[in-house]
């Protein structure tokens, strides 16, 4: 499936399009099908998000999983500083990236 991601303009945080707004958690991302271009155009105009782009992902038992490792690193945080990631209490979460 296709999902949309970007960065919060003000904070730089990685964010994912939920269909209604933006979330920091990739599991909240929704498939956008053929609407990606229109959503990105509309959201870019709000000036609250930057670097918006569409990526491939799949739905797994663990939730939404971006297809490429770079996007999985974005979704989680640096694997070498799990204390700064979105799953600071789960040191094993880094394996999800690989």
């Amino acid at each position, binding site marked *: 499936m296709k999902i949309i991601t970007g960065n919060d303009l*003000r904070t730089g945080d990685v964010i994912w399009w939920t269909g209604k707004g933006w979330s920091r958690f990739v599991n909240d991302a929704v498939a956008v099908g053929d609407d990606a271009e229109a959503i990105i155009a509309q959201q870019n105009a709000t*000036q609250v998000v930057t670097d918006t782009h569409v990526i491939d992902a799949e739905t797994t038992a663990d939730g939404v999983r971006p297809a490429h490792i*770079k996007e999985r690193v974005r979704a989680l945080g640096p694997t070498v500083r799990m204390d700064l990631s979105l799953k600071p209490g789960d040191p094993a979460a880094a394996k999800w990236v690989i």
Partner: protein
Amino acid sequence: MYQYDNYDQSMVDARVAEFRDQVQRRLAGELTEDQFKPLRLKNGLYLQLHAYMLRVAVPYGTLSSRQMRMLGDIADKYDRGYGHFTTRQNIQYNWIKLEDAPDILADLASVEMHAIQTSGNCIRNTTSDQFAGAAADELVDPRPYAELLRQWSTFHPEFDYLPRKFKIAIIGSETDRAAMKLHDIGIQMVKNDAGEIGCKFFIGGGMGRTPMIAPVIGDFVPPLQMISYLEAALRVYNRYGRRDNKYKARIKILVHEIGADEYRRQVEEEFAHILTLGLEPPAAELERIKGFFEQPGFDTNASDDLDLSDPDFALWVDQNTHAHKRAGYTIVNISLKPIGGIPGDATADQIRLMADLALDYSFDELRVTHAQNIVLPHVKKADLYTIWQKLDEAGLANANLDLISDIIACPGLDYCALANARSIPVAQKISERFADLGRQRELGELKLKISGCINACGHHHAGHIGILGVDRKGVENYQLSFGGSEGADTSLGTITGPGFNEDGVVDAVEKATDVYLAQRTEGERFLDTYRRIGMAPFKEAIYAKETANG
């Protein structure tokens, strides 16, 4: 150290105010990202994988304690309690908020620092020998010339939109500690037969996608004509550099394509013209700058005696100190490479501690090295034990300088938007594999460098052992190379063969060190043995299993 005059300070303050206005307009929606991006990049503000990243310039790697303390305070106040020292002697913060960026730049300006020209196709921060002004083998202190370069290159209108970024290094010793020949321009201060000082220009080096060692273009340029020669070299590049292809736009490609002789001819022609224009900075300005770099007030009675009865201290002294030009003094290298740690990272508390040590014991000076370590350049030997104890308490007394765990590694895919593979986990695993200091010392000098993409920020081409992370169909893969060097014997590494996964490359490194230990002769480093016996024995060892399995 150089201190800003009113012109320097007002220029930097004005830039802060300008950027504050630009950020406000961006946040208010008055500027689009396309309009704003080049403006933020001009101020060192990138958008990386997780947040904005701010790259702060450390001019020729030199810091005062006040500046270093500010770097620690910024890490606490605006980031997540740490900073990352880079292979270009700068520092980067990984978790910056756009709305905070102007305040950070204002804080930096208050201690005569900035992030100007740490991005973009302009002349970047000039790098230099981290032992400048202190090393026993120094011919000329390169710092006044590096400062002159800083002033010349900052906001230089003609060179603000070059075909690509441009990096200059300058050294004043025979020993190259700045990877000088792997820069767009490397300048070595030399002495001729008449005893006169001059600049030797190496032009067209670089790492990245197409690594090249810079050829000598100018043999001996009088120091007062250094700026004119640079103007000529840059002007020829600016005119003919390949703006049509980003991957062929660095000066090394131009020098390679037209040949060093033809490039030299054009530079000499332009140089002759520029000399007629009288564009050189006045000699008085160079003398004014030199005044900031006079030797500190060394104790002429300082003793060389040292109590080495503490074995851990003795190891650290042996590994991490370097000969100083003055009796009774030494140069201290603070390794930012703990076993299993992140190369180049330091916490805010560690940064402030190093600032305090510089103030109390090193005439208020620190240096950042391109190997991602910190130097206290002027330490009285009598103070070494106290310093070591304080470093040890802070986890900064790693006695591994230039050993296999003193790894250069770029941020890689854990932080960098350009990376294809993670660098840091590989560095961590290698340092853990070789954690035993006795084993490391048995291996001796072994410079291992890791890059997470072909841009080579981790200098893998110049590693005795180099590792390059690549993306192979969405999976991290690591190419191994041997034989690189960045010193006086600069050479580029040769790829061993097929790549490895993360654990496989760690195993391969260990097998290579086994070959070295078995084959070395007296006094040989890993690099020397490799150069003598060639790739074949190493290749045979590291691919043995694959060969056996067909």
